[in-house]
């Protein structure tokens, strides 16, 4: 995957915020942020779905990555891959997350802001016992009362019927599809599309109420 590593290094070459200062013996980029803070970034080039077999070898070294980045960004990270990365104290994301993670000054603990919000909110729900990743934007919610639910979070200010169909195509079956922002709206056609799949299209507030039932 040297080509994607080079691509990221070249993209960062003239950047003033972060600097690539070298590579590890596993070809991870060593990136320096301000005040001498540095971290290792493993760049992979998986298309489709990133599985744990794609990421586990990255940690078979003493000089481990704190961030795993995939190019291109439009992929799904499988739940097992995410768990493997998190269990190593690392984080995952896309090219743009190099900056976002660096700014936290604790790259291994970096989490996508929107997903982090959803995960925390669902975990703190009184009827929820466990939230686990199915994919990076799909979660299995185990509840005290009621069956487990699969929730797909989509990046849409206004949810359309096509958003719902596309989510189904990308991630498979789900019980609930929810927008990642409290603003905007859901079209009636989106609600109908979800219903035709035996699912529900909900806002964040509606999701919180649904988790209780």
């Amino acid at each position, binding site marked *: 995957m040297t080509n994607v590593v080079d691509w990221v290094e070249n993209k960062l070459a003239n950047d003033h915020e972060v600097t690539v200062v070298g590579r590890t013996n596993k070809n991870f980029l060593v990136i320096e942020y301000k005040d001498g803070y540095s971290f290792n970034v493993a760049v992979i080039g998986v298309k489709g779905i990133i599985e744990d077999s794609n990421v586990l070898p990255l940690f078979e070294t003493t000089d481990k990555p704190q961030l795993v980045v995939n190019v291109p960004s439009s992929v799904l990270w499988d739940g097992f891959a995410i768990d493997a990365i998190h269990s190593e104290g690392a984080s995952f994301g896309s090219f743009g997350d190099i900056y976002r993670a660096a700014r936290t000054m604790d790259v291994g603990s970096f989490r996508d802001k929107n997903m982090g919000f959803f995960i925390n909110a669902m975990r703190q729900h009184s009827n929820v016992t466990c939230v686990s990743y199915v994919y990076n934007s799909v979660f299995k919610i185990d509840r005290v009362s009621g069956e487990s639910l699969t929730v797909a979070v989509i990046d849409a200010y*206004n949810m359309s019927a096509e958003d719902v169909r596309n989510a189904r195509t990308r991630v498979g079956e789900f019980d609930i599809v929810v927008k990642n922002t409290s603003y905007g709206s859901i079209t009636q056609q989106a609600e109908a599309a979800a219903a035709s799949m035996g699912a529900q299209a909900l806002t964040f507030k509606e999701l919180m109420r649904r988790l209780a039932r």
Partner: protein
Amino acid sequence: MNRTSVIIKLSEMACCLGAIATGTEWHLFGSVDRNEPSPSDIDLMIFCLNDNQADELRNAIDFDIFEIPLHISFFTYEEAKSINVVFMQNSTLIIKPD
């Protein structure tokens, strides 16, 4: 990357799509439409004649042609009108393929 260069590239894309894109409207909104410096992504809405056209366009469009992420929301005209999304997003009609 500025608003003009984005519109030129999107226009080329619309042209390459040919008949699939006929009858659609492409609306730009957000930071690129406001021509802000260093936008983090490109926000576009495409209004379609029907569901099939929306699905076909999703499959046909190359989302990786820009250096920054391209976010596209597909609506049928009926959906877009029902939530008055042009007003809500303060979007600008930039392309209307024949």
